[in-house]
């Protein structure tokens, strides 16, 4: 059966990664299907960041395979995976700090549509690029900030710009590493609603500590503890799982359920 037939955007197969004696990723199997938000949760030190890095391409697994859109991308660079259709937002905002908000998004649009090899025409005067970038900024509500330097943005606005830059790539799969981190309750609510609407466009692998957001957004949840996926299933299944309660969720579930 091909990956296209199974409807999988992303498949992790038997992924392991060890740092010395520490098994940060220990035989992880995980599937993100088309049109679903798959949340990855787990306590601090569970190996979420290590796993994300292996999906994005910054870190090579010791064994196992990463299959993206039916392609085995295990040996691919970060840039090549992005070109295939992987968008990403970072846990700590990672932007072109000296560029304006608009130029950051224009760079993303340019990367997807034309690449880096244009040496003559001034990029600022490229109306098609500018119009598309403004369109993306409009979607995340940053239009009024377009001409401001990134350094002048608030923390929440930087989070939104991260998402905007990922969206400008028109990704098939979005890798969101704690997008709610540091957002106030209002910001979290807005971003949650925005991501819910986005689900029709692309699938998402969402790493998030905010459980309300996870339960509101996720179609399925995988729970990572000490590098292992100890449970994977629907929101209801995860809430009901005794193993998950014991390992991680316990108190929080009682609090919010």
């Amino acid at each position: 059966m091909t990956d296209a037939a199974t409807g999988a955007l992303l498949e992790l197969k038997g992924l392991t990664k060890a740092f010395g004696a520490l098994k940060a990723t220990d035989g992880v199997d995980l599937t993100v299907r088309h049109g679903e938000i798959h949340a990855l949760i787990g306590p601090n030190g569970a190996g979420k960041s290590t796993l994300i890095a292996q999906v994005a391409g910054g870190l090579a697994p010791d064994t196992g395979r990463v299959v993206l859109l039916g392609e085995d991308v295990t040996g691919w660079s970060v840039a090549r995976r992005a070109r295939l259709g992987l968008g990403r937002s970072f846990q700590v905002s990672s932007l072109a700090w000296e560029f304006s908000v608009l130029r950051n998004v224009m760079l993303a649009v340019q990367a997807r549509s034309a690449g880096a090899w244009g040496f003559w025409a001034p990029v600022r005067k490229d109306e098609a690029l500018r119009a598309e970038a403004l369109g993306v900024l409009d979607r995340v509500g940053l239009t009024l900030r377009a001409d401001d330097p990134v350094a002048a943005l608030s923390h929440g606005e930087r989070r939104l710009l991260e998402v905007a830059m990922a969206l400008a790539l028109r990704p098939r799969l979005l890798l969101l590493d704690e997008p709610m981190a540091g957002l106030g309750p209002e910001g979290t609510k807005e971003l949650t609603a925005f991501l819910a609407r986005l689900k029709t466009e692309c699938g998402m692998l969402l790493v998030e500590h905010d459980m309300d957001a996870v339960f509101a957004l996720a179609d399925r949840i995988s729970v990572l503890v000490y590098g292992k996926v100890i449970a994977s299933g629907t929101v209801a299944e995860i809430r009901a799982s005794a193993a998950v309660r014991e390992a991680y969720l316990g108190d929080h579930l009682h609090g919010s359920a």
Partner: protein
Amino acid sequence: MSREALVNALLALALLGAPLIAAAQDEPFYVALASRVAILALAGVGLNFALGTGGMVSFGHAAFFGLGGYVAGVAALHAFEGSPFFAWPFEIGGSESMVVIWLVALAVSALAALAIGAGSLRTSGVYFIMITLAFAQMIYYLAVSLPAYGGEDGLSIYIRSTLPLVDSDDPLTFFLVCYALLLLALFLVHRLVDSRFGAALQCARMNPLRLATLGIAPFPVKLAAFTFSAMLTGLAGALYAELNGFVSPAMLSWHRSGEIIVFVILGGVGRLFGPVAGAALFILLEAFVGGWTDRWQLVLGGILLAVVLFARGGVIGLLAGKARHD
């Protein structure tokens, strides 16, 4: 016109005007001085593209400067002797054509930069500085160990190569040629910085992981920029050897690499006309304070210290204000 554009235009006019006046007053020394400024500014414009725009702090640009110089020297030697540079499998002799020398200098610097860049651009920060320095030192010792081309003593160029239509031996004409090449290089760099390539390169400087995440691999972008940067510096080296009628391993030494970095920092890192201002200030200090005391570099050191501590934008930053970011 922005303030920086005005400052740039005034600088360009001053650099053109000074030797014209000097020539009218029959002062060839000052015409040659202006040629030195134009040529070293060109070398700095090359480095500034790698260092200022691309964030690649190369401590080995003397390698390209010297290679360009040796292209001019070796071509002149073989042309003078009528001997071949190599005779097998086909024969290549020297050349008296300045344009041919420029093209060869550009090609040689590009090849050297591709090799050095491929070996060093996987690193960054202090490692990149050290690796570029190491490569330049290798080429320095190669030149020292070549007795056929003068070894440590260097190589004299007895007859300056020629250009079609104009007399390249005339000091003012030679200045104008150097000046035109400098302006051309500045124009090309200006277009490049504003292009799609320039946007990607600047992102590679600010945040290479971000660039990769957008789908553009930083390495080829940086390698292309490093190569273009080296070509400009190599061309400057060829002109410098022709100006002095002499090339020696000193052109390849790490002192020279340091000087080119000083032009860039004095003038303003990443500012289009920074290296022009930096090279001009450097040469003026050397000529005038140097004429008054041998310890002119003490003054240079003081100014450099002041720039690094208090005026990060260099001369251009002082005259035109902070760089605009948009």
